[in-house]
Structure formats: C-alpha cells, structure tokens
C-alpha cells in the first residue's frame, strides 16, 4: 500500500556567494528555471512552488518540462532528500531511486567489489548483497571482467554493471530520471525487459523524461513543470497534445 503525497510543497534552494543585483541576474532569471528572489545577500531560488500531488499504488506519473523546470528537484523531494521549505511530505512504503546508477562506483575496485560497494550505498546489508551478487553478475553478462578493476571497462560495460546492480532491488516506489537503459543492442533488449518487469511489479512510478513516447507508453498521469510550478496533473493524452 504505497503512498506518496506532497501538499503545497515549495523548495527554496539557497545560492551562496552571489553578487549584488546586476544585469547578469536579470538575464539569468529568464534562462534558468526557478524564479529568483533576493534576501539578505543570499540568493534563494524557488525551485518548486506550491506543488500538490497524491500518488497511490498503480500510479505511473510522467514529469515533463523544459530544462531547469524543477524535474530533478521534484524527484529529490519525492525521494525525501529535501525537507520542504513549505508544505508537507508524506510517504508510505519502500522507495528506490534510479536517478544516479553510478553513485558509489569506485574505479580501482573490481566488478565484484563494486557490486558490494554499490549495494552498501543502497543500504543493503552484507547477507542481502551476497545473495543478490550471482544474479547481478550473471545479468550484467560481463563474465571474467568482473574480477578486474572497473577502470578497465568501457563506458558501456560500466553502465551495464551499474544497471544490473541498481535494478536488482525492488521497492514499492520507484523514481527514474529518464528511462534507464544501457549497453549494446542485445543488452538493451534484456535491460528494457527487466525495466518493464520492475515497473509492472512496482506500486508507484515517477519518471522524469523529455520523451513523449516514453510518457505515452509507460505513464497513466503526467505532470508538466514550468519554472517550478505545475500547470496540471491530468490524464496523459490531453496534456501531451497541448505540450508538444
């Protein structure tokens, strides 16, 4: 019984070291996503403004918007990273974030060691990692390379390893910053299938994306963000028609 709820949430990001009011700031305001206010020498960017959202089991939310609109900030807020400056945040159920699969990967460590390291970063304990390791190793298809330091890997191999590790855990709520995929055509097919399985088995999915196809295919709700505010949170088709 997963639940993810934001009520009137605003996120104010402080920016330190900003100079006094200048022409540069006026220009900056039009090209960046947040609306900028000035307050006692610390610039505060309102990255999200009064967002309300309720997600329950079965909800597949697509988040769309221009660069800097606040998609990543919204994902982080949903992950519980940012305590809201205003409003309330409520979550029930386990959550896993696929936003940065490469976090915690150490170049000098072997593939096997990175499975353990990445697992630790994800909060798994020793026994769970040991149990999941063989499946992860097998899915990645990297074979003997797993015994070598990952700095010898190509970028594609590294992503395959990261993908295999990150997708080995299941949770009620899943956060994605762009659809996760990696590797050559053959691996991508398996990866897509695994993603499909994960999404099918998850309670709530939140996917930030620039791709209309993705939203069409995977989501049953879509939220459009613009300068930290949401225009709407409607069934997919109508929103897509007007957005693109």
């Amino acid at each position, binding site marked *: 019984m997963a639940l993810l709820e934001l009520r009137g949430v605003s996120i104010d990001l402080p920016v330190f070291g900003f100079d006094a009011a200048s022409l540069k700031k006026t220009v900056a305001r039009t090209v960046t996503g947040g609306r900028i206010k000035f307050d006692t020498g610390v610039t505060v960017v309102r990255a999200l403004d009064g967002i309300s959202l309720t997600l329950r089991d079965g909800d597949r939310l697509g988040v769309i918007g221009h660069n800097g609109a606040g998609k990543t900030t919204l994902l982080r807020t949903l992950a*519980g990273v940012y305590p809201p400056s205003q409003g309330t945040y409520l979550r029930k*159920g386990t959550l896993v974030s696929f936003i940065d699969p490469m*976090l*915690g990967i150490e170049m*000098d*460590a072997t593939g096997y060691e990175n499975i353990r*390291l990445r697992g630790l970063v994800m909060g798994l*304990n020793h026994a769970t990692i040991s149990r999941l390791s063989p499946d992860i190793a097998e899915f990645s298809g990297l074979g003997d390379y797993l015994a070598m330091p990952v700095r010898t890997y190509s970028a594609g191999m590294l992503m395959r390893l990261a993908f295999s590790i990150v997708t080995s855990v299941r949770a009620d709520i899943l956060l994605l910053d762009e659809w996760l995929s990696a590797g050559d055509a053959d691996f991508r097919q398996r990866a897509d299938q695994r993603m499909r399985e994960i999404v099918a088995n998850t309670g709530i999915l939140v996917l930030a994306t620039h791709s209309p196809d993705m939203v069409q295919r995977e989501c049953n709700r879509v939220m459009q963000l613009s300068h930290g505010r949401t225009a709407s949170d409607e069934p997919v088709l109508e929103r897509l028609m007007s957005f693109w």
Partner: protein
Amino acid sequence: MASAFSFTPASHSSTPSHALADWFRGTSRIGTWLPLAWYDICLRYRRSMLGPLWLTISMGAMLLGMGPLYAALFGLPMHSFFPHLALGMVFWLFIAGTINESCGVFTQSAGYLKHADSPLSLFVWRLEARQAVQLAHHALLYLPIAWWAGIRPSAAMVMFIPGFLLLVFFLHAIAMALGIMCARFRDIAQIVSSLVGFLMFLTPVVWQPETLPPRMRFVLDNPFAILLSLVRDPLLGKTCSSDAWISGVAWTVAAVIVSFLVFAWKRRQVVYWV
C-alpha cells in the same frame, strides 16, 4: 536507496526527539558504514606494494626518528619516553585526522546526500571508523615497543576501553558539529586545521606532562590532554586519577550536548548547503 518509513521521515522534522531518532538510524547502520570505511582504506592503498601496511611502516619510521632524538633533547630515558611518544603520536593522528577530515565530511558526500534520504550520523561514523582502522594499523607498532620497554599486560589496561569510548564520542560530537558548520561556511576548515596544529604542541603528545612546571599546569586542563591521558596511561600500565575520569566524562558530555543542539537545529539544512 531502499528505505522503509511509514510516515514523514524523521529527517524532515526539527524536533529534538526526531533528531535523536535520525542519529540512531545512522548509527545503527553499522553494516553500511563499517564496510565502507574499510573499503576506503583498502582502495586508497590498492596497487601499492604493501597495501595498508604502509600505514604501519610510515608510523614506524617516524617513531624511530623522533624517539631517540627527542629522548636525547629532553634528557629522558628511552624506556619511559618511547612508549609515551608512540602512543601519543598514534592517538594524536587519530584525533587530528578525525577533526581535520570532519570539515569535509558532508561536502564531500554531496552526491550521496542528494541521492537519497541518508542520516548524517552515518557519514560521521564512516569517517571515524576509517580513522579507527588507521589507528589500529598504527597501534600494531606499540606491541613491540611496549614489550621492549618492559610493559606487561596488567589489569589497569582494561581501563583503556572506557577511555577510548569517551574519546570516540567526544570526537564524534566535534566532527558532527564541524561538518555541519563547514557545509555552510567553507573557510572554517582552514581555521580548524591551524587550531589542530597549534593544539598538538599544547597537548602532551610528545612531551611528558610531569615535566611541566607547576605554574603552567593549567595547560593540561584542555579536553584533548585529558582524554589523551585516559587512553594512553592505561596502556602504559598506569592508572588515571578519578579527577581525570570525571573531567573526561564532563568534557565528553558537554561536547555531545552542544553538538546535539547544533545537529538538531541545523541538520535539515545540510542537504541544501552542500
């Protein structure tokens, strides 16, 4: 990162009881921070010939250089000076290392902090565990030195354990407070580094407290001197006075209280500052 709250996470609340719960959440994840600390050390010494054993060797080289020289300078017998010096250096590196690195403990983990809802105490324990692993590598040297100086295991040595626990919590409190402050004001790190360097001379790391003239005895009232004596003296086979214990406990409790206030007040902002 998979996590299992059933309501608004403790990390979002500013009440002290939630702050305490959040601190325990990080502390209880020893299955995460302890292996990570160990890997930090191993990976740093990967591709080197002797691995983490270099820690022991470099400490050994320093002691072999300093020992005879300072003993001659101070006019002290090596049998009593060398173990004192060895333990002083070993524990001071632990103390100084923890405090200096604590300035970057959150800023350097910005990626982790912004990826998932992680308790701050987890990062502080990781740092301290890493320093403790290094301490263990350094402390190996004490065994041959103690044996050479004629120090044998005795009942008094058991008191090292509570002394060390006090030191661990004292440093944890300082590290947490400094980490939070340095996340906001980036120049505190330099100030801390200078202060730690200064403290090394003020604290009887190398020199022996008995050699201090009576009018200068107040110098020994600093918490580092007190806690250092609580961990060093038992291992030298001496017992510490009850005054020293009371002092040590008082300083630790004071540090923990002040640090907890800073933590409870500002912990929600750290993720915004890094």
